């Protein structure tokens, strides 16, 4: 992992485009070292897409005009979303950039009927299976037990409702497994709330219980009432339309046998 880049120099402005969950972003920065680190970090997610949203990184000029539609600060790094662009300031290293990108995505996905979830996503037989839970619940274990190449993410999953169906997308945000996510997507086969147990067993949940399982694991950073109403509407729809289960999980690969097909 790269060291903090507090002393990195400024050079000509460079930019690269990335697409995470089909949300297209263009990062512009003058910091050559941060540019190199970020280009390498998001290599699997780079690529041109139609009308990316531009993010100006560490611009020295103070913004003018109306206040931000959404803003967030994390350990000295600040994100501000304006009607005419997005600014990330005080970004000293790629971890801060990673954090602000997650916050931004959680906000942007509202407009795409989507959300970010603390969950590992594994593809099996063409469907995405999401395993959610707090740290230590077994997300990384599930990812490590899955065949190579089948893990979309071991930490932060992205769900979107597209053409009337839910799809899970890979993200570049990793956890303990430290696997760079895969930039692909698949229709959602089910969401499983991990609970460590002596035996593997899946129990179907009704929509209210699925919503209860989702809420503590959703990444969302806005206190705005309207944004939260929108999020809750999206999550309720997901809880109603996606099959959800409690998965008693022994942390061995035999758990696949108890998953509903």
């Amino acid at each position, binding site marked *: 992992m790269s060291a903090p880049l507090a002393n990195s120099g400024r050079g000509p402005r460079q930019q690269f485009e990335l697409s995470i969950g089909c949300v297209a972003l263009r990062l512009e920065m003058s910091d050559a070292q941060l540019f190199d680190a970020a280009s390498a970090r998001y290599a699997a997610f780079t690529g041109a897409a139609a009308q990316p949203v531009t993010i100006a990184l560490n611009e020295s000029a103070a913004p003018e005009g109306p206040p931000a539609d959404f803003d967030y600060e994390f350990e000295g790094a600040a994100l501000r979303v304006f009607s005419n662009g997005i600014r990330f300031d005080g970004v000293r290293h790629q971890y801060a950039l990673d954090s602000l990108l997650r916050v931004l995505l959680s906000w942007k996905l509202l407009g795409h009927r989507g959300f970010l979830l603390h969950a590992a996503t594994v593809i099996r037989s063409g469907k995405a299976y999401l395993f959610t839970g707090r740290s230590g619940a077994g997300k990384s274990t599930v990812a490590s037990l899955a065949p190579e190449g089948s893990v979309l993410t071991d930490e932060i999953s992205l769900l979107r409702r597209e053409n009337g169906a839910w799809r899970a997308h890979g993200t570049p945000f990793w956890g303990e497994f430290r696997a760079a996510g895969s930039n692909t997507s698949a229709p959602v086969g089910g969401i499983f709330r991990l609970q460590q147990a002596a035996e593997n067993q899946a129990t179907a949940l*009704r*929509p*209210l219980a699925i*919503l*209860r399982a989702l*809420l*503590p694991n959703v990444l969302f950073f*806005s*206190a*705005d*009432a309207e*944004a*939260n*109403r929108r*999020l*809750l*509407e999206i*999550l*309720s729809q997901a*809880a*109603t339309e996606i099959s959800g289960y409690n998965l008693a999980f022994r942390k061995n690969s035999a758990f696949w046998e108890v998953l509903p097909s």
Partner: protein
Amino acid sequence: MSAPVVVFWQKNPALAWREIDDETIIISPNDSVMHELNDTGSFLWKNIDGRKSAAELAELLVENYEVKPEIALSDTEALLQEMSSRKLVVAVPATSGVSP
């Protein structure tokens, strides 16, 4: 002695809520706390609109559920107090003419 002050009840406008499986989940965005209301709690929640008193809400409960008026009123008042302490609802003076 003056007459008791009648208040109307309204939802805290800072909240997000959703009804699912006949229950209501309420999110308080400022502290990320989740609250749940059961069937009758959800019924009252839907009818809390800033234009009804506890007695009027209790009357609706009697009309829609098999419950005695005095029980409906005490349950409604208890729920409103509980929701008020959690900042889910606020009391407004009944004379203020709250607009929808």
